[in-house]
């Protein structure tokens, strides 16, 4: 065993979410962890949604097949989406590495702390400039726009005609996702489709991006909606209680226009203040169902009090990157590899220093401890860590 690993064990459980959630970490990442001297336990069936067999994961001697309970019982548990309802399977002092969204999930944070779990939120691992290191905003944009143009072609068959005018896409929001949405929109969310249409001499796509200083200009926005074929919500709102586009404005969009929801804010009407969606009255989808025509029953299932009278076809998905699972996981594995290398090298999360190497600093920022410190509510270390501190001078428990 590699001396750096210090006897750490890793568990890679499956996600067990909606049926169309097919993502798991790939054999290459599991092998990397094993090659660094760790015992790795993968849940049987891992990767099967993407066509992998258990055998594909067992290429290194230190990789073992396990059931879900065993996979969660290891020192470090790595699972992409937060394992809601399964935290109790993680042992006290264990480390959970997952998309945990600490800032918006206070109950989850409390639960992790109460359970003595040392956690790293993949979504909060950031470099010194605040850039996320494990992120797939590109897939959010490309997969969402791809679906939007599939829907647009259904509603507006001239999309593939040489005689039509350029397609008009309006992207609200120019941040991380908005930037990728612009590029994706210029290529119909699908490079092959873009090349094909260009080869046939079909005019391309004009993408108009408007930031907050124009989305708040009702007169401008209403006029602009009438000239929009695809309306993309890629905003980060200051005030999630107020929609950017009230439901009745959707009547201004052409009948064939498609709404592409890349933000996927929830409706939380019981919260104080309540959270509503940026484009009011549209359904929220998931990997099982993310395309909603105007007569879809999903519109009628929205919370009472949300106006849905004005409707246009919508594409919306809670996990856009999961639409193309293998592509998504290839990226996440590449992003995660140097971070797991660092985690192992430092003998676990407790050895990760806030002023260490580039990847150490980023990992530290992703930790629950760092979140609490930034949040101003720093907690005492979990019980095991307290014991370590009594007996160890370096704080490195490796």
């Amino acid at each position: 065993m590699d001396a750096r690993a210090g006897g750490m064990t890793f568990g890679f459980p499956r996600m067990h979410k909606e049926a169309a959630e097919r993502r798991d970490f790939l054999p290459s990442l599991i092998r990397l962890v094993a090659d660094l001297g760790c015992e790795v336990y993968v849940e049987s069936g891992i990767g099967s949604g993407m066509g992998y067999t258990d055998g594909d994961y067992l290429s290194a001697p230190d990789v073992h097949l396990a059931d879900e309970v065993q996979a969660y019982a290891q020192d470090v548990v790595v699972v992409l989406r937060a394992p809601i309802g399964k935290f109790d399977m993680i042992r006290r002092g264990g480390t959970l590495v997952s998309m945990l969204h600490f800032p918006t999930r206070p109950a989850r944070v409390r639960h992790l702390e109460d359970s003595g779990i040392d956690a790293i939120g993949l979504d909060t691992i950031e470099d010194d400039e605040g850039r996320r290191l494990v992120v797939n905003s590109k897939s959010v944009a490309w997969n969402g726009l791809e679906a939007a143009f599939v829907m647009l072609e259904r509603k507006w068959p001239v999309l593939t005609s040489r005689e039509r005018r350029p397609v008009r896409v309006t992207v609200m929001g120019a941040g991380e996702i908005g930037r990728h949405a612009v590029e994706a929109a210029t290529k119909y969310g699908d490079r092959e489709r873009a090349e094909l249409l260009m080869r046939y001499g079909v005019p391309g796509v004009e993408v108009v991006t408007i930031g907050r200083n124009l989305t708040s200009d009702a007169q401008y926005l209403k006029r602009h909606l009438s000239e929009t074929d695809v309306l993309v919500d890629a905003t980060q709102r200051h005030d999630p209680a107020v929609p950017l586009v009230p439901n009745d404005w959707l009547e201004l969009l052409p009948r064939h226009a498609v709404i592409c929801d890349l933000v996927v804010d929830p409706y939380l009407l019981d919260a104080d203040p309540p959270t509503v969606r940026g484009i009011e009255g549209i359904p929220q989808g998931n990997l099982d169902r993310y395309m909603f025509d105007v007569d879809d029953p999903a519109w009628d299932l929205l919370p009472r009090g949300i106006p849905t009278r004005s409707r246009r076809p919508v594409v919306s998905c809670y996990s856009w990157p999961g639409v193309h699972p293998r592509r998504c996981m290839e990226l996440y594995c590449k992003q995660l590899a140097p971070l797991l290398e660092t985690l192992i090298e430092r003998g676990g999360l407790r050895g990760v220093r806030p002023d260490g190497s580039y990847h150490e600093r980023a990992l530290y920022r992703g930790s629950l401890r760092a979140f609490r410190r930034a949040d101003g509510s720093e907690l005492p270390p979990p019980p095991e860590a307290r014991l370590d501190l009594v007996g160890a001078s370096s704080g490195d428990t490796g």
Partner: protein
Amino acid sequence: MHKEPGERRDFLPEMIGHLGRVGAREVVLEEGYGSGLGIPIDAYLRATSRARVASYDECLDQDVVVVVRCPEQDELRRLRRGAVLVSMLHFGTRPGRTALLASLGVRAVSLDAIADGSGRRLVENLEAVAWNGVRAAFQEIQRRHPHFDHPSRRPLHVTCLGSGGVGGWAVFAATRYGDPQLRDALVAVNVPGVEVTVVDFDLTWNEEYMLGRLERTDLLIDATRRSDPSRPVVPNAWLSALPDDAVILDLACDPYDLSATPPVVKGIEGVPHGSLDRFVFPADDEAWNHLDPRIETTNRRLALSCYSWPGLDPVGSMRTYGEQLEPLLAIVVEKPAGEWGGASGSQLEHALDRAEVSTWMRAQAA
């Protein structure tokens, strides 16, 4: 860096300190290092006890030489055989220099070629290219627009050619006038914002569409990466459609090289090529007249072009490069170049190895 006077960049003391911490035996700094940034040499010497000051020649004589912009060819010949050179080397577009480095036996690592397994560059500052260029362009617009900060003016119309790495950041920056503080100030007094329209190569060929778009453009940005650099995206004749007070911003900064086969021209035909010393060219600027007469320059608008847009914010630029380089230089210090990227090598080692000239040349030949 021995470049134009406007080039003030050197690495910051933080990175020099990092080199000491990761085990560099000695860090040799050229006399005057950091002076362009206003950083006293003492700040570097305090960052690590392993730093010392020496002549430029002595700096070039070290095991590892790190400098953002590539030294001139006669300076490259002074590097030791087997030395590691870490710099922006642009192997693909500088074939002569690349061959020279290989023949000298220099382990040259091109910063612009260091990419992870998915091809994402690990050392880049496209964000600064866009923000610095867009900020400078809006400063010119603000200077000339009679109602720039008045609530009655219409939204400003920006047309951005290209939606890739630079284009994406240019869109973001343009929605904020390249200056978040200016944007906040204008929002506070209800001044309409900026509408950014992006068009890519599947529309730029359409002359009728483009002329209509240019007529409605206040700021035209070239953020393209052309597959055929011998043909402009916007021929000079089309510039006549731009309003007289429109501004052109060249972020692509392709050079003019009419001696190359095929020749290389800028994406917006006729725009002068700028540097850190001079990057704003009014329509009546002499620079337009000094271009090769084979380049059409009849139609002119105020244009901005700079070969090194990140250099406008030298400290920010070097902070970014320094942070991106830290983990890579740790490997350079720790391992000889020949051992990068072996079977047990980390992801970063492999990235470094792929950007080393001999590996790069082998990959091109394969």
